[in-house]
């Protein structure tokens, strides 16, 4: 479903150029759970921004379901992000002035879903991630694990085909981290959604059916159980 071919991404820094990704290729089938590991500064977030249609590579090709998404213009990209992709960030990025269900409902709002329906679906999704009792809470009143569950509900509420999670457990303690991982596994089974998890934690990566490592701008498959 995701097909990256020969992706290069370089940044202009002062007079020179730094090449973060070079000739990177990756194909992920629908419904796969893939972990991406790699040293700090290796370009994992850069890669995720490209996959998430927030950034464009300097070279290469990127197709989603065969559609060349690098040709899409800004509005079309917004629409694709809204319909196809859900983001989960390391530090949750909930909007502090919206309560839990309004945070979750946000992707639906930008789609023009009527408020009543958006609310119903947001609350159903919060129930699914185990926060039935916290739908009206403001983010500041939630624990880290709870915030991440809200963020996951927000990523999932629009029924995307792809979830991109950038170090989703990086800010959580091991026990909560494991709970979040189990939630991802359950959601993958239930919704058949493709999940890409960027992580530094080998324990997290080990639970993914496929693991890749980013180093020197290219991806290499890690043998199972490394």
């Amino acid at each position, binding site marked *: 479903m995701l097909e990256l071919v020969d992706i290069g991404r370089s940044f202009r820094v002062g007079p020179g150029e730094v090449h973060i990704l070079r000739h990177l290729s990756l194909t992920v089938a629908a419904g796969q759970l893939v972990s991406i590991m790699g040293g700090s500064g290796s370009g994992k977030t850069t890669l995720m*921004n490209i996959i*998430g249609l*927030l*950034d464009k590579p300097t070279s290469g090709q990127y197709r989603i379901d065969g559609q060349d998404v690098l040709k899409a213009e*800004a*509005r079309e990209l*917004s*629409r694709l*992000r*809204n*319909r196809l992709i859900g*983001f989960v*960030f390391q530090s949750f*990025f909930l*909007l*502090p*002035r919206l309560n839990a269900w309004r945070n979750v409902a*946000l*992707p639906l*709002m*930008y*789609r*023009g879903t009527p*408020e009543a329906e958006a609310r119903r679906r947001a609350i159903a999704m919060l129930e699914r991630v185990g926060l039935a009792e916290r739908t009206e809470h403001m983010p500041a009143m939630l624990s880290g694990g709870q915030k991440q569950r809200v963020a996951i509900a*927000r990523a999932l509420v*629009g029924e995307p085909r792809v979830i991109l999670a950038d170090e989703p457990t990086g800010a959580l303690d091991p026990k909560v981290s494991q709970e979040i991982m189990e939630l991802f596994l359950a959601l993958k089974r239930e919704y058949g959604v493709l999940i890409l998890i960027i992580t530094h934690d080998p324990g997290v990566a080990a639970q993914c059916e496929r693991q890749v490592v980013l180093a020197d701008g290219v991806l290499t498959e890690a043998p199972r159980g490394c």
Partner: protein
Amino acid sequence: MLKRVVAEAAANLLASRQRSALALLGIVIGAAAVIAMLNVGAIARNETIRQFRQLGTDILTLRADGNTGLGNFQLADLEALPMELPAVAEVAPFVIGGGSAQHEGQVAVSSQLGVTAAFAQVTRMRMQGGRFISDYDRYELYAVVGAGLAQQLSTPYAPVRVGSGLRIGRYVFTVIGVVEPMLPSPMMPVDIDNTLFVSIPNVRRIMANPSLSMAILRMRPDADAEAVTAQLQRHLGPKLRDQRLSVQSARQLIAGMQSQMQLFTLLLGAVGAIALVLGGVGVMNIMLVSIAERRREIGVRLAIGAEPGDIRTLFLAEAVLLSVTGGVLGIFLGIAGAWGFAWLSGWEFVLSATAAPLGAGVSVAVGIFFGFYPAVMASRLDPIEALRAE
């Protein structure tokens, strides 16, 4: 959709109350100044109309000036005017002076006019009781008093009315009429309410150096004030020899008052405009600060699927909401200010129909104008940069 945008904007503004209030202040002051200006203009216009309603606008006043002081008309020259100049309907020559009168121990100082019977017609005065001075009264010791003066001279036991005796200097005049209350007119050198009238022959008895220096004249309805003024100068000028004749028309006076009002209105308008611009800059400043603080929120919204247009709407709504709130408060403050002005100057308060909608319109325009740039800036943020922001 609109409701949701407005509700969200309101919530965001409430979240940073202090800052919002500060930006609000500028808009409130600006809108209030604009509204006050418009309303004071309306009040002043209304007042001008009110002042001239009593006498009408087809009035001229004539004055003769000598080299050393007041001049002297010949009574016959003035009284012949309606016959000699077709545009002149009626003329009321008068001698002007002032002094005190006594009644039952009450003393009051007032203007004193020596008049002919025509005075009542030209000024369209009405009598509360009795009659006005007639041309046959000549040396009879008769007096007519204005409503205010009658009240001042009255005692609880002896009101001034027809038949009362007034001591003026060495003479006792009999009151033969009391005038109905009248508004003061800018065309008259005296306030009729506070004036005592006697016949022209009698003025020598109550004034030291009387001179027939003034007249009030009513033109025919279709006459042109400027043409009549020129005719009068041609006709009366030679008869006055070395004295000067000055003619003032009601229209000329109104024009003068209006241009003065316009200046005042313009001044207030300029103050309002400056305050509004400052308020607008305040709004812009707040929006820029707010956007800088909420970069990550903007990044998240963009990642989630918001289009740049959605972000622009979000921030534009905040700016407009802020200035509309300021505008509404400003309307109330401005109207209150205009009311205070009317109260202080003793003028009648009228609500200008254009003030409120114009004030509201202007403040919305300010919100859009000064909110647009920050909103566009926000919508152009790069989502990656915005997400990285701390």
